[in-house]
């Protein structure tokens, strides 16, 4: 009898040992944009699969369709994504419309502290209402709009000489927006190595978020802000201040006088193409692309240099990046939370950076070797110190499309003045906030 009981117990233990992982193993779908860091995440997630027994499936959508596709998915209560690395501006809608799971209890239970992540990223990617300790995402991918340039062209003696004779100073990566414009204009239609080159590739895309992300990179440093008093939606005098107008006029001048012809609807891909094809001396883009650019056999390595978005009245960069959230409609929330717990570990965050992802974990960012770990790492730290983001309100899409229209009308289509564009933008935004009951 004793032997029989022992055998039965052994069989039970054996069965539970074999069956338990199978019973709990889930196939998790992680949704994100289709770009370089997504490939790094696929590689990184193999470790999670090996450790947890869960399998990972990925749904990556190209950037121009990413918001459209994913917001439709969330709004329809779709179960496609268990985990979503959603754009920073979606956090308000994600929280208020119940798309994202609130993570506070989970963080408390698992001992995940938001103090372990860079404050700017926690504020931007995780909290709603802004700055309150209500977390709907874990900072996953720090990012900002930065610049890269043809270092080999900048170092050519004849180019340096020509620049010095024109501007009376050495040709070097710009420290201010005005210097940026001067350098871009200097390269515009200049012949280098027998070919006509252009100044800079900048964002002018109309359909999604391109021109807003590009123009704010000039407008923030020159003095554009969204409200006079944070949280009060008092936009008059902030959105259309003389500094904001000057910032927008500056961006138009940059577009009109220093970009290649035909770049009227360009965003990330077009910026990369313009640079890699040797058309431009400088280009703006998200830091996320910098590891790939540095590794490029034709225009990377010694030929490329990087610099943070130049300041003017103040240092400021347009925020990119995303937090990772658990989708409220997922049937596999437990497994999705397991992934977040695993991803938050310092060792995983360190690997994330090594593979090409931009960790927001302080153990990675504060590591003394971080600044020298890549040619753009120190610029990334500088950028993240001064990031500014678009509205993160639930009505973000409506607010963004209004800005896209007003900026494109003025910058690319030459309709009206900068003052009129920003005044109309306030009218659009006021209507939206009134509909929202916030004004």
């Amino acid at each position, binding site marked *: 009898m004793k032997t029989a009981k022992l055998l039965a117990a052994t069989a039970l233990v054996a069965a539970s040992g074999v069956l338990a992982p199978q019973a709990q193993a889930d196939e998790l779908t992680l949704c994100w944009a289709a770009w370089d860091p997504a490939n790094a995440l696929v590689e990184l997630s193999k470790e999670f699969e090996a450790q947890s027994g869960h399998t990972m499936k990925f749904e990556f959508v190209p950037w121009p369709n990413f918001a*459209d596709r994913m*917001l*439709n998915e969330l*709004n329809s209560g779709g179960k496609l994504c268990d985990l979503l690395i959603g754009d920073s501006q979606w956090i308000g*809608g994600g929280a208020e*419309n*119940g798309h994202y799971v609130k993570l506070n209890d989970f963080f408390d239970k698992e001992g995940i502290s938001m103090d372990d992540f860079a404050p700017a990223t926690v504020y931007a990617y995780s909290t709603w209402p802004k700055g309150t300790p209500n977390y709907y995402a874990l900072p996953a991918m720090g990012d900002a709009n930065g610049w890269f340039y043809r270092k080999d062209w900048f170092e050519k003696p004849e180019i340096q000489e020509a620049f010095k004779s024109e501007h009376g100073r050495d040709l070097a990566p710009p420290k201010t927006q005005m210097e940026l414009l001067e350098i871009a204009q200097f390269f515009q239609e200049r012949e280098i190595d027998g070919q006509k080159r252009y100044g800079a590739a900048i964002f002018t*895309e*109309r*359909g999604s978020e391109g021109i807003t992300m590009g123009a704010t990179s000039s407008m923030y440093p020159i003095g554009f802000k969204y409200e006079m008093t944070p949280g009060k939606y008092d936009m008059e005098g902030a959105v259309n201040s003389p500094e904001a107008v000057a910032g927008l006029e500056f961006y138009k001048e940059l577009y009109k006088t220093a970009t*290649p*012809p*035909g*770049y*009227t*609807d360009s965003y990330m891909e077009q910026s990369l193409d313009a640079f890699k094809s040797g058309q431009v001396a400088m280009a703006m883009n998200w830091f996320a692309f910098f590891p790939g650019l540095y590794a490029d056999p034709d225009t990377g390595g010694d030929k490329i240099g990087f610099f943070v978005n130049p300041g003017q009245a103040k240092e400021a960069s347009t925020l990119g990046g995303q937090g990772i959230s658990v989708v409220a409609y997922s049937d596999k929330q437990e497994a999705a939370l397991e992934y977040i717990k695993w991803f938050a570990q310092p060792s995983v965050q360190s690997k994330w950076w090594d593979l090409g992802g931009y960790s927001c974990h302080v153990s990675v960012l504060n590591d003394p070797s971080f600044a020298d770990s890549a040619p753009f790492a120190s610029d990334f730290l500088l950028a993240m110190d001064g990031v500014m983001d678009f509205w993160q309100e*639930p009505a973000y*899409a*409506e607010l963004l*499309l209004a800005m896209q*229209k007003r900026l*494109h*009308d*003025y910058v*690319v*289509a*030459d*309709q009206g003045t900068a003052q009129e564009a920003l005044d109309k933008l306030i009218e659009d935004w006021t209507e939206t906030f009134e*509909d929202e009951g916030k004004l």
Partner: protein
Amino acid sequence: MSDTPFNRAAKATPPSVAAKIRGLSDRAIAWIFVLPTIFLLLAVNIFPLIWTINLSFTNFRANRPNREVEYIGLRNYERILTDSDIWLTMQATAHFLFWTIFFQVLIGFALAWLINRKFKGNDLWTTLIVLPMMLSPAVVGNFWTFLYQPQIGLFNYGISFLTGIDPSSFQMIGDVTLAPWSIVIVDTWMWTPFVMLICLAGLRSIPDYIYEAAEIDRASKWRQFWTITLPMELPFLMLAVLFSGIENFKMYDLVVQLTGGGPGSITELTSINLKREAFEKWRTGYASAYAIILFVTVFGLASIYVKALNKVKER
């Protein structure tokens, strides 16, 4: 009883069913046949239309299921009709509609007239001409963006070859004055063959004996064209205008791929604007009112036009 399919079906019908049918009136049997179609029509067309009309009086947003829906009367309609930006998109649509129809009918008819002549290689030319309309609008939009590219685009080089101006000195898609024409050109290129086929059907339906009688009467070719060809072709031309008008009023994919509605909002047609309001800004109530206004406009214009078409046919 002869062995016809009808009789075979009658024989195969079970007596109980046959008895039931025998008891039904012709009208009842007709309703049985028509009801599924009516039900489908109500479910797919009429109910959504009534629902859209209902939504157009509310502040409903499909992305805010938790928000209380308020009836706001005619506010959405008032906003749309007083919005200068909406009128600009209407103007852009009117420009696009007028010029695409004009060029498509003109070129389509000319091509049909030429193809209708009997010449060697006639069939090959017909096949080549209809090729563009077989392509997907998204593909056409994409490859024309390359053709219009100021630095490498064939279109710019063609214009440069003909006029001598620098190919990179003008931007078809990026220039405010040229962009509306860029979409007209592409749409004309793609859909002229469709108009040509309608016109060709019209030309081939004119009996030869009418021309033979005109020849006997010594009518000149020009006179034959104005008194025979054009009047008999007119119903077909009007049909082509109707089809082109309806098709181009809802134009979306080709223009989105080509210009994205830009530069600024210069080529933002009403369909693009409506899609942005409905599925990007998620102003469902507002977009419903917008759709109703467009529906009434198209329905009204089409009804007037169809009446005119019927009058022409009756002559």
